[in-house]
């Protein structure tokens, strides 16, 4: 496999993530879309680390590791906020929790 194949896959993942975030009407699905976006970035870093940087430079892989940790932290906070939303509104659809307007 060449670098191109990895980049094509990561762009597809990224686009799917953005599509999911923009079209889904459920907070959990939005979170899944965000995870797709973050994973496409991690794939990019790992691929660039393999093909672009010198073999003894593993900074790309380390950035990917940090990316995974941050995705987990973000998911934790996101789920906690979804729980708070569910307690107040009894729904997790972004359309029905849209009360602040103007």
């Amino acid at each position, binding site marked *: 496999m060449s670098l191109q194949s990895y980049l094509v896959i990561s762009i597809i993942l*990224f686009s799917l993530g953005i599509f999911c975030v923009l079209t889904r009407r459920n907070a959990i699905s939005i979170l899944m879309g965000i995870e797709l976006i973050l994973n496409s*970035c991690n794939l990019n870093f790992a691929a660039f680390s393999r093909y672009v940087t010198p073999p003894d430079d593993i900074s790309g892989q380390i950035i990917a590791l940090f990316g995974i940790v941050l995705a987990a932290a973000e998911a934790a906070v996101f789920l906690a*906020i979804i729980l708070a939303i569910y307690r107040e509104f009894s729904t997790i659809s972004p359309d029905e929790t849209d009360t*602040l307007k103007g």
Partner: protein
Amino acid sequence: MTNIASIPYFIPEIVLVVFAVVIILYDLGSKKTGGNGAAYLGLIGLVIAVITALVIGSEDRSLFLGMVRLDSFAMFFKIIISVATAATILFSVRSSELDPETKGEYYALLLAVTLGMYLMASSTHLLMIYLSLETVSLTSYILAGFLTHSPRSSEAAFKYITFGAISSGTMLFGISLLFGMTGTGDIMLISSKLGEMFSQGNVYPLAVLLSITFILAGVGYKIASVPFHMWSPDVYEGAPIPITAFLSVASKAAGFALFLRLFYSGFKSADASIDWSMMLAVVSALTMTVGNLAALPQQNVKRLLAYSSISHGGFLLMGGVLLTSEGLQAILIYLIIYLFMNLGAFFVVILIANEVGSETIDGYRGLVSRAPLIAVSMAIFLFSLTGLPPLAGFAGKWILFAAVIKEQLYWLAVIGLLNSVVALYYYVRIVKAMFLESSDDTESLSFSPGSLVLLLIFVVPTLLLGIYWNPLYELSRASLGKLMG
């Protein structure tokens, strides 16, 4: 500098971490007694952090193998951010919105955000930039949703994290492309690599433009610039008022620190080929126009100030598109002035929300007869936000417009001037309600002496800096350091 050798220069950040932990432990021990011990511990931590930062000094040093840079630019923003956090702690003590039971975590989180902002102001590596941005974002989401029994606050946190997660994910994608093109994460190296690649012609300008645009999504979201501003009115309206004040000042300042360091140290060499500064000039014009026009019909003062802070972000961005040290100096000066006038305005909103129980303009009717000092202070802050002489806001705008006109970006200066006129209309609506309209409630309001002293701390600089801004000028010149290269 290696990791171990860097630690002595990292003491301010370590102090913040230690105090955040101490506050949590203190909170565990004092659940039943209540009181404001956690808040004062937070203040002590901030003061010690600032003192140690000043003792360490701002000699140019690269720490932790090029991850973080200690320089006068970082120092400037650390002090601005610390002042804003200290003010937020004092506001929180006086705000009746927060539940005393959970205040310990609240102050520990505030110190954690401050730590993230310190790092945002000093990161020089793409990984560190992303990590510090996420530290600030994740803790801000929690703080925005801190009122657990308020639907508004939960909704604010939900909107904040949805927009925030998408834009920071987009930014990480941009960072990964940039990393792939240059093979490094160090922004100084990226700058020289990009310059080299453009001069040899072995790079697609479109790819660089794409990655810079993606990175702008994350940065633009932090400074609430169009088109990444949609979260800010809802979040500002729903969050606890002290947090709204904090987000509108400290978060914006830290966002500008990150933006300026990234774009001036990292992407400056790419400007000749892809002209990102022109793109940002358009963003700046749109940001101030959209912010101002949307503020016109607002009835909720918090929401009105949210839109006004978007438009101030647009004004600040004007200085960032010029690529001159005058423009950067104008940003730094404007940020100091904005710190005092905006925090002051939000403090009045807190006092009124406590006493009158209203956040709408109707709650401000006849305020001059009920609480003259508060009404006059609010008028000073609002006129200063408009930019009327002889108040501080005028000095800030004057220096900013002078820098823009010097670079002959006349269209941007004209849009900025027109926007200042529009802004006058909605700020004056509040002043009119306070001074010219009468309310059914005529009972006079009383405020604690502590609150009035705190209010004066913001009024005095707003008045003084408008007629005597030389020290600001010297300070901002000294703070630029080597950012302009």
